[in-house]
C-alpha cells in the first residue's frame, strides 16, 4: 500500500489524503449512527434516509446557525466549549511531560538506584486505576481533608488562584489515571536507553562533546507519537472526564444533548464531533509527517 516513491510532495499529499479521508469517513459513520437514535420529537413519517441526508448536510456544509436549545450561536457555544476542553487536555499533557521527561532521562542514565526502583514501582502501581476512579477518590480526599468541593462554577469568574485550584483535581486525575504517566515514562526511559547504547553516541562522548542535545533530538519523535496517541485516547474519553467535574466543554455538551429524551441538539453534537475529529486528524497528520521526516532509516 505504501509505495515509497522518491517524490517528496507525493508522499506529503498521500499522507494528507489518507488522514483527511479517515476524517470524512468517520464523520459519515457518525451521521449514519446518529440517524438511528430514537427521537420522540421527530414525526413518524420522516424516513431514515431523510434523517441521514439532513445530518450529512449539517455536517459537511456548515448549514446551521442557531442551536436548537436556545438563542446561542452554534459557533459561540463550540468556541467556548473547545476552549475549556483543550485547556484541560493540553494542561494535563504538559504536566505529564514535565514529570516524565526528567524522570525518564535521569533513570536511564544511572542504573539501579533506589530512586529509580521507587519511582517505577509507584508509577506502575498507580497506573491501572482509570481516570474515573481517580477523580472520585480525589474528590473524596479533598472533601475529607480539605472540607470543600471545588465547583466548576468558580472557574468562570474567579481569578487565577481560584482557577488553578479548580483545575487542580481534574488535571491531577488525568495525569495520574489510565496509565498516561506510565506510558510516557516507559517510552522515554526505553528510548533514552536505546540511544545511550548507540555507537555514535559513545563516539560523541569520546570526543568530549555534550550528549544531551543528541539525546533530546532522538526523543522528539517517540514523544510526539505517544502524545498523539494519548490525545486520541483522551478525546475518546472526553465525555466522562467532563461529566465527573461538570466541566462545560465539548463532551459535556454532547452528553447533555444526547440525554434529553425529546428533540436532541443535532447541530451541536455534529459541531462538537467535528472539532474533536479535526483535532485527531491534525495530530495524526503531523505525526505521520514527523515519522517520515525524522525517521533515521529513511534519510536519503
Amino acid at each position, binding site marked *: 500500500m505504501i509505495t515509497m516513491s522518491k517524490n517528496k510532495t507525493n508522499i506529503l499529499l498521500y499522507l494528507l489524503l489518507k488522514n483527511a479521508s479517515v476524517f470524512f469517513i468517520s464523520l459519515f459513520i457518525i451521521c449514519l449512527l446518529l440517524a438511528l437514535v430514537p427521537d420522540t420529537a421527530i414525526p413518524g413519517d420522516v424516513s431514515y434516509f431523510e434523517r441521514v441526508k439532513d445530518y450529512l448536510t449539517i455536517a459537511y456544509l456548515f448549514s446551521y446557525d442557531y442551536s436548537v436549545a436556545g438563542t446561542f450561536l452554534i459557533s459561540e457555544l463550540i468556541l467556548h466549549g473547545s476552549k475549556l476542553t483543550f485547556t484541560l487536555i493540553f494542561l494535563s499533557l504538559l504536566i505529564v511531560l514535565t514529570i516524565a521527561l526528567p524522570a525518564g532521562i535521569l533513570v536511564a542514565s544511572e542504573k539501579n538506584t533506589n530512586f529509580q526502583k521507587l519511582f517505577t514501582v509507584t508509577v506502575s502501581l498507580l497506573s491501572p486505576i482509570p481516570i474515573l476512579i481517580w477523580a472520585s477518590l480525589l474528590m473524596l480526599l479533598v472533601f475529607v481533608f480539605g472540607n470543600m468541593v471545588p465547583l466548576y462554577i468558580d472557574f468562570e469568574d474567579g481569578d487565577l488562584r481560584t482557577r488553578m485550584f479548580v483545575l487542580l483535581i481534574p488535571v491531577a486525575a488525568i495525569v495520574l489515571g489510565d496509565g498516561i504517566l506510565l506510558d510516557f515514562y516507559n517510552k522515554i526511559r526505553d528510548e533514552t536507553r536505546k540511544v545511550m547504547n*548507540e*555507537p*555514535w553516541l*559513545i*563516539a*560523541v*562522548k*569520546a*570526543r*568530549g*562533546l555534550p550528549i544531551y542535545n*543528541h539525546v533530546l*533530538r532522538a526523543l522528539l519523535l517517540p514523544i510526539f507519537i505517544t502524545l498523539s496517541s494519548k490525545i486520541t485516547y483522551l478525546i475518546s474519553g472526553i465525555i466522562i472526564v467532563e461529566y465527573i467535574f461538570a466541566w462545560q466543554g465539548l463532551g459535556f455538551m454532547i452528553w447533555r444533548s444526547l440525554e434529553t429524551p425529546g428533540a436532541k441538539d443535532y447541530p451541536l453534537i455534529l459541531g462538537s464531533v467535528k472539532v474533536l475529529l479535526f483535532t485527531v486528524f491534525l495530530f495524526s497528520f503531523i505525526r505521520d509527517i514527523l515519522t517520515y521526516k525524522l525517521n*533515521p532509516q529513511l*534519510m*536519503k
Partner: protein
Amino acid sequence: MSTILEINNLYLGFNNSQSYIPAIRGIKVTLKKGEKVGVIGESGSGKSQTFLSTLGLLENNPGVTAGEIIFDQVNILENIPKYKKANSGIPEKANKKWIRSYTNRAKRLRGKNISIIFQDAKSSLIPYKKIIDQAWDTWKKHNIANNYEFQNTATSLLADMGINDNGKILDSYPNQLSGGEAQRAYIMLALLGNPEVLIADEPTSSLDPYSSRKIIDLLVKIVDQKGLSLIFISHRLDQILSSVNKIYVFLNGLVIEELEVSDINDISPLHPYTIFLFKMANGNYFRKLRNDICASSIEHIERNNYGCPYSNVCELKKDLDNDLQSKCNDTLPKQRLIAPGQKVACWAYEK
C-alpha cells in the same frame, strides 16, 4: 623520549551484588612520546577495556578497582578507594563519589589529549549531520571558534590522508560514504583537537584488506608527521607487525608478553602463546621460532581466576618441578624484564 601515558597495575572487574568477576588483572603498559604500540589479543581479553578506562568511557561496567593511570604526570585514578582483595573476589560496593571524580578527570582528556578511533566508522558518526557540521562541533569544543582556521585544518588533514576533493566527503551524510572514506573522516574528527595520543580500537576490522592496508599506512604517516603516539589495538598480528615499534600481548586480562619489534629479523618471543600468534601471522617467515614450546592449539585455554590463564595447556609447565607448577595454578605471574626490551609474565622464566 618521555613517557606520556603509563598504566600501572590496573585491575578492572564486574562488581555485582553476588560476586566479583575480574576482567583485567594487574597490567602494566608504558607509552612514550612518538612511540607506536600494537596491542594483540583475542576478543574478550580486555584490550579495548584497558584503553577505554583511560577516558572513563566504561560506565563502571567493568569498574576500575585498583591501579594507576598516569597521563603526563597526572594520575587519573587518584585516591582510589581500596577494594578488599580486588584480584580475587570479595565484592565491595562501588564508591560513587570517587567514580564521579575519576570520570570528571578523565573527561578533560577526551578529544583534547587522547582520541579514540572505533571499529565501525560509519556507525560512529552522527547519522543525521553532515561531516562538516560534526567537525565544526568538535573544533569549537577544543579550539577557539575560527572558521578560517577550521577550514584550513580540516582540508589539510584530509589532504594528508590522500583526499584532495574533500567537498564530496565534507558535504555528505555518513551513510553516503564508503567504509574507507568514513574511517578517514573519523580520523580527521579525532585529530581536530590536537591530541597527543591516538588510540585506534580495531579500526580496520570491518574493512577489506586493501582499504585496511591503506588506513594503517596513513595512520602511521600522520602519527609520524605530527609526532603523536599511537596505540593500535587489533587481533591480527600480520597487519600491524610492520607498522609498530612495540607489541603487547593480552591473554584473559593479563599482559603475558611485551616485546620490541623494530627489527623483524631479530625477534625472539618467549611465551608459547606469543610464538603461536607469530606463526599464525606468517608461518613461513617465523618457522625458525621455537617449535617445541609453541602452543599446539589455543582452544582449551580456560579462564582461571587465580593463576596463570595459560596454565592448563602450557608446554613449559611440564618441565618444571612440582611446587613451581602449583604456583602456576595459584598465583598470577607478573611482567618481568627478561631480556632488553622484552618482558614476560611467566613463572618458568623467573630466576
